[in-house]
Each structure stands twice: as structure tokens, then as C-alpha cells.
């Protein structure tokens, strides 16, 4: 049985502290670095990136636009400028390549808050969790797209914690911290990974963008798994792991194919047996179709 107080000790012993936190540190670097790029302008007058995650302009030449918010504005009847369209295409191509929910784990500032809540949950041994469906986020996504159609206004952006956090840090926070506190307490006390894993429509949207994305986490070394279960505990979307890690007998490939996976790499870090790693999606599919795999799946050959 897994001893939660010793979570990650094996990995630290095998790989050293830095090795066992490599991807976590890189993610924090990415999240804070992106924030810093937006902040050196207003703080030090060094204008590298202007705007925020909804739409930005880098060095006055590179436009980037959030496809979810632009879709909402188009549904309420607006025709975007060319810069916005170029920005959306760039963003979509990027997330199609690296995985849609890379936005969640490598960019979104709310991730730091929900990760903190998850960490506290583990430290304080809070187990209580309410039964919210992970599909709620897709209903929420539908809601965010229906509301502009009905009201003609981008209603979701009035309360969206994701854009509000980033905008708050870059342009002034106002009372947005109340919503963030709400998200934190919800994740801490009400539901494990409640916000990011169950409700957030932004994450759901990016999940759909990365439905067929190329960069994936895989359990290539899955035969080394000693069933310590630590990856399941640390993973914010644990249901994505099982098919890849435990699918050898059923002939399922070792690549985590679910678009719910955020490519955060916590499973890679936490595993003392070097089971996980980043890799391409395609390698997996060919591997799935090996002779043994097909036999195991019951396909007549």
C-alpha cells in the first residue's frame, strides 16, 4: 500500500532532488517566465510582450490570440482583424503540436494555485472529494459558447479565473483574488483537482485542440513498473495513465493518448523506475499495431 507521506522519496533517492523535480521546475519556470515577459513592460518599461493571454503582441510583430475567447467574440457577432486571425492560427498550430493542455500545465497561472491546493491536500491528508463528473467541463465549454450567442456579450470573461488571474497580475488585480481564493478552497476542500480537472472550460477547449496532438507522455518502460501507484496519486488526471501503463496485456500502446493529459510530466518526475518519458504520438500507434498487440487484442491475423 502506498504511503502518502513518503510520496516521491524513491524518485529523489534514485534521481536526486533536482532530477525528481525536473519537469515541475521547468513548468514553473515557463509559467513565471511568461508572466515575467508581460510584466517587464509595465514594471521596467522594457516592452517585449504587450497585452495578456487573450491577445498579445510580441516585439510589435508576433500576434498571439486565445482561440477560446476569440471564438466567443465571433459567436457574439464580431469580425476579427487579420492580426487576431494570424494569432489564433499560430496558437492552434502550436498546441496541436505540443498538446492542447500544455496550456494548462505550462502557461496557465491558475495551475500554480491549484497545484498548491493539491499539494496541501496531500500534506494535510484531506481525502474528501465530491462526485463531480469530469465531463462537467465540456458542458461548461458549451455554456461559454452558448452565452455569447444568446446575450451577444462575452459573458464568461466576466468571471473566468484563468484570464482574470493573468490580467490581474499584469493590469491590476481588483477583487479577482476572491475568485482565485474560491478556486483554491474548492480544490483544497471540496474536490480533488476540482477546478482544472472537472470544471474549467478553458482547459476543456484546449483539450479538444490537442485531441490529436503530436507530443505525448508515454510509459515506454512500463515493464519496470512496480505498482507503487505514486504516478496515480500525483497526476491531476489519473484516469489517463492506466490504459498506457497497464495496457500491455490488452495490446494498448504505452503512449498516453487521452487529450485530458496535460503533459505536465509529474509522472515522469515521480517515478523512481524511469517508466515515463516524453515522445511522439505516432511512434505509439505503430507500436500498438505490432503482431503481438493485435493478437492480444483478439484480432485474427
Amino acid at each position: 500500500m502506498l504511503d502518502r507521506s513518503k510520496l516521491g522519496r524513491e524518485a529523489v533517492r534514485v534521481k536526486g532532488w533536482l532530477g525528481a523535480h525536473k519537469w515541475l521546475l521547468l513548468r514553473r519556470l515557463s509559467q513565471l517566465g511568461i508572466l515575467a515577459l508581460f510584466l517587464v513592460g509595465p514594471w521596467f518599461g522594457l516592452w517585449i510582450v504587450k497585452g495578456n493571454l487573450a491577445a498579445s503582441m510580441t516585439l510589435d510583430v508576433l500576434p498571439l490570440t486565445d482561440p477560446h475567447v476569440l471564438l466567443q467574440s465571433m459567436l457574439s457577432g464580431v469580425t476579427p482583424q487579420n492580426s487576431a486571425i494570424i494569432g489564433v492560427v499560430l496558437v492552434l498550430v502550436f498546441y496541436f503540436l505540443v498538446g492542447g493542455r500544455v496550456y494548462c500545465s505550462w502557461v496557465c497561472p491558475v495551475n500554480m494555485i491549484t497545484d498548491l491546493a493539491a499539494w496541501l491536500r496531500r500534506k494535510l491528508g484531506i481525502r474528501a472529494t465530491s462526485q463531480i463528473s469530469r465531463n462537467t467541463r465540456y458542458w461548461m465549454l458549451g455554456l461559454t459558447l452558448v452565452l455569447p450567442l444568446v446575450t451577444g456579450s462575452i459573458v464568461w470573461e466576466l468571471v473566468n479565473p484563468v484570464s482574470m488571474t493573468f490580467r490581474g497580475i499584469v493590469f491590476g488585480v481588483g477583487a479577482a483574488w476572491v475568485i482565485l481564493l474560491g478556486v483554491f478552497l474548492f480544490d483544497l476542500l471540496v474536490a480533488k483537482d476540482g477546478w482544472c480537472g472537472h470544471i474549467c472550460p478553458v482547459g476543456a477547449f484546449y483539450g479538444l485542440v490537442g485531441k490529436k496532438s503530436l507530443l505525448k507522455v508515454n510509459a515506454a518502460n512500463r515493464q519496470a513498473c512496480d505498482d507503487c501507484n505514486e504516478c496515480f496519486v500525483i497526476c491531476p488526471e489519473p484516469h489517463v495513465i492506466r490504459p498506457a501503463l497497464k495496457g500491455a496485456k490488452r495490446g494498448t500502446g504505452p503512449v498516453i493518448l487521452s487529450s485530458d493529459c496535460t503533459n505536465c510530466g509529474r509522472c515522469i518526475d515521480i517515478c523512481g523506475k524511469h517508466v515515463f518519458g516524453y515522445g511522439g504520438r505516432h511512434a505509439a500507434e505503430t507500436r500498438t499495431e505490432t503482431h503481438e498487440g493485435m493478437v492480444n487484442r483478439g484480432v485474427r491475423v
Partner: protein
Amino acid sequence: MADSEQKSLQNRRQFLGNMLKTVCGVGLFGVGLGMYANRASSLPAQTIRPPGALPEEEFLGACIRCGLCVRDCPYDILFLGKLGEEVATGTPYFIARTGPCEMCEDIPCVAACPTNALDHELTEIEDSRMGLAVVVDQEACIAFHGLRCEVCFNICPIRGRAITLDLQHNARSGKHALFIPVVHSAACTGCGLCERACILEEAAIKVFPTHLAKGELGKHYRLGWEEKERAGEALVTPDAEHRYNLPEGVRYDLQGEGLIIEEKAEKTPFSSNPLDTLNNSLLDEQ
């Protein structure tokens, strides 16, 4: 067999039940959010949108709250609404009293907007209608007391057209003029420079969003004199020329000189020779 069937039925029930719960929850949230949005869609009186902003209802659908207009404003007058403020969260505005629009010719805020929430059709800053200036307090405005000020008139970037000075009689002194500032919506852009410049502790001229500041005549109203000018002739049967019942040699010029006496010079009652007057009156008596 029956057991597994029952189990699958149970599963299906549970699945449908869970889904119903989710849908109801999300639906309720949506209704609440919609109502909140409705309440938040009214623009407070002292928040003015940047130049080229679409009408408020459309603006709230078009603005993606990116803040690029804020960044490209060279005078740093724009803010994004924060949660808890009355203006819709994340949308740009300025406060005329503390930071009015300086009316840049190249309108960088509009150029920066990625979605047309600030209309890219706007190319002349003088065509923008951010709001409308209103002389809100005639009691406090010192021009109404007969003091010379005219600061709003002079600071106005569309000087002489958006604000004019209406000269009126100063009834208090009996011999001076009042220089009354009058705003004309046909030219006022709502930049707010007048509001910032107003010398009072609390400005007597203020810029409001146009829908708050502007009255509107019933659609069926027509101003006869304008229609007449447009048509080039009277649109109703012209009045018969008025006949003044005046003695011969006298006529009346309406809206002109007034009473005109066309008597010949020698018939004037007063000749240069005073004796003539005396003789005339003697003749009249006869």
C-alpha cells in the same frame, strides 16, 4: 443474465442521473452568470470608452479584454475594468477628469485592437464619439456668474465648433455680457479635455457616455424651417402676404428694418427753418 441486465440498467440510470445533475448545475450557473452579465452591462456614467468603441452592447461582445489598447495609448490614460468595479471586468475605459483622451491623430489604441471592438473604420479622430460633454452645473460654472473663464472653450481640440460661447445679457450688472459655454454634439468627440481643464473643485462640464448625455427628439418631429430649406420651398401652403393697415407712404418690413416711412424729403414735418414748422401748424389748424 437478468442480473447483468439489471446491473446495466442501474448503471444507465446512474449515468443519466449524474448527467442530469451536471447539466442542471451548469445550467443554473449559466442562468446566474447571464443575470450577472445583464447587471454588469450598464456602463457607469464616468467611465468613457476609448475612441471608436462600438455601442456598449456590441462592445461587450467584441472586446476580448486583452489590454492591447491600454498598452498602445501613449498617454497611459486607459485602464482595464477590475472585478468589483462597476465597469465590465477587463474592458478598457478612461476617466476624463483625471486622464482625458489626448486625441492622437494616428489613433494607436484603435490600431492595436485585434477584434474591431474599437472600430478600425475610424480613421479621423475628430469623427470619434467617445461620449458627450455636458455643462452639468450652471450654478457652479463661473461663466454663468458673469466671470470670464472660457477654459473649456479654449482647451477644446475642436475649438470653436464643439464648444461655442453664447453671449448673453448680464442681468445682474445690467451692462456686461455672460460668455456661456455651449456644447454641440455634432462636433464634440467626448475626449474629456474640457472636464479635466474645468477650474472648479468639481467640474461643471463633464463627459458622459453618449446614451446618458444625449436627448432624442421623437422620430416624427420635423423642423419646418429645416425642411423648407432642404426642399427649397415651403412644404405647406404659403401664408398670404400680410397686409398692414398703414397710412400711405409708410410700410412695414417684417424681420427687417421694421417701420419704414417713405415720405419725400420736403414733406418731413421738421424743415431746417423753424418758422416753417410754426407756419405748417397754423395751416393744419385752418
